[in-house]
């Protein structure tokens, strides 16, 4: 299935797809905009189009791209770390950790103090979950063990979230905010959310040079070390970046499942296992996938993003399980 021809065109194709999807995403909605109107709107020549684009559609598009890239790259790194193609932030409980962290600070009424409170709490929650899953399922653990560890963590962190929902004296706004996280969506995303998610770009840039050593690591720890890879340092970086990417994505859109599972998996099938190639393609492809899912949701009567990705990802996951068995 892997051919040099496919490998060569993968990144240009993914970039083109992302560009086309982005243009469609800017164009469709209650007010339909043509290419010319989009240009005029972006240049502030058309006041109505400018308002729609700069206030609503552009931030939404950017948030979708950022979290798509983040979740898919996070899944790729976790799969390399656990040497298991079913590892992903959602199944392992990393996303649930980020949600629990966010819900706790929103419920406690701390979210208003600073823009960075929720992302920080998400990162802390996700780090706790990652730490737990690394202890529960060592590298190279069987698929059963990995998934069971994820089930246990997801249940535990879900309980934390439920506890917050039931015990705090919640105002209507706080309750609505929390429900927003639990559902996962891109509704009403503003430039504030783009700013909150922007460190994703930095984390993705840090991921870039890890592609090559990740290749060596995925063929064995001792082999990698003897070939010159600082394995302990590499593993720390991999976990830190995977966690950070998931947490940042979750802190702006809530739970969006299965992106980190589907995107790396499909590209690994198409392009082979080399991470130097997979890292950029997963970043771009993940962004394109989430923009596409958002478009599907919007054209299907405003289905929330998390619902669309789960409707696509659930069956895909079951198919993968069947294929592994």
């Amino acid at each position, binding site marked *: 299935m892997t051919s040099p021809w496919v490998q060569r065109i993968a990144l240009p194709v993914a970039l083109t797809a992302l560009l086309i999807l982005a243009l469609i995403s800017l164009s469709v909605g209650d007010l339909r905009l043509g290419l010319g109107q989009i240009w005029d709107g972006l240049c502030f020549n058309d006041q109505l189009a400018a308002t729609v684009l700069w206030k609503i559609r552009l931030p939404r598009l950017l948030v979708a791209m950022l979290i798509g890239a983040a979740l898919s790259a996070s899944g790729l790194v976790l799969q390399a770390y656990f040497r298991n193609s079913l590892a992903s932030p959602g199944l392992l409980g990393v996303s649930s950790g980020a949600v629990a962290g966010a819900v706790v600070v929103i419920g406690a009424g701390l979210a208003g103090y600073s823009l960075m409170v929720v992302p920080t709490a998400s990162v802390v929650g996700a780090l706790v979950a990652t730490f737990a899953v690394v202890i529960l399922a060592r590298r190279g653990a069987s698929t059963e063990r990995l998934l069971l560890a994820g089930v246990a963590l997801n249940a535990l962190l879900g309980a934390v979230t439920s506890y917050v929902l039931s015990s705090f004296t919640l105002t209507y706004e706080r309750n609505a905010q929390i429900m927003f996280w639990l559902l996962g969506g891109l509704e009403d995303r503003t430039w504030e959310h783009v700013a909150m998610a922007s460190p994703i770009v930095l984390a993705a840039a840090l991921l870039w040079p890890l592609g090559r*050593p990740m*290749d*060596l690591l995925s*063929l064995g720890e*001792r*082999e990698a070390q*003897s070939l*010159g890879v600082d394995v302990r340092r590499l593993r720390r970086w991999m976990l830190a970046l995977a966690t950070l990417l998931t947490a940042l994505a979750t802190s702006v859109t809530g739970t969006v499942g299965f992106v980190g599972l589907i995107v790396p998996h499909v590209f690994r099938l198409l392009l082979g296992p*080399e991470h130097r190639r997979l890292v950029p393609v997963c970043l771009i492809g993940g962004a394109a996938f989430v923009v596409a899912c958002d478009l599907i949701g919007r054209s299907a009567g405003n289905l929330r993003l998390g619902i669309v990705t789960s409707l696509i990802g659930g069956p895909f996951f079951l198919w993968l399980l069947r294929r592994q068995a």
Partner: protein
Amino acid sequence: MNALDISGASVAGRLHDLTLQVPPGALVGLIGPNGAGKSTLLQLAAGVLPASGGVRWDGRPLSEIPVMERGRLTAWVPQEARFEFGFSVRAVVSQGRFAHGDDDHGVDAALARFDLTALARRPVNRLSGGERQRVLLARALATEARLHLWDEPLAPLDPRHVLEVLQLSRELTRAGAAMLISLHDLRVAHCLDMVVVLQDGRLRAAGKPADVLTPALLADVFGVRARTAPSLILELP
């Protein structure tokens, strides 16, 4: 100065207070029954297994050599070649150049040397055991290391490739590299520069094969009766 210097190294339950020197340019056979500690010794010599005691390469303590530089100085070949992802043969061999900044230097020569040129694009997880072993040896060759630590490199190979690997080992040691290879074929061990005998995690004997591989030692360590007699001799044409 020794290429490899191990002094008083121990790994709990597997190796006890082991001291060993490998001079540069020496082709050394590491022998011993199953479970004697051969793989453990090679791993601690390669610096991929933490152990108490000292390991030095060319007189430098291992702890003072950065990980990246270690990748250029030493090539360790594990006993078992397991590949969980479908990397191409060429991709795996070129990993030997990681510590050299992935310059791809000598990768094609290493592939050719192990008859892998025709298999270069094949995924490694679809190769036979012997072919996988040759991929790992080609990767070790590509590192251009001065110290080679190979764990049973000959076991899965066919007779012709065994001879070729031995010939290559000779070339490497003549060029000044030092090699420590574990093996079970005592007749091959008999032709090397030096043998090291392990028994129950301890050094039993080390020295020239003719001095070490006496019938008495072989009977004691391996439980076999040894004698010299005319036998089938295999050589490269």
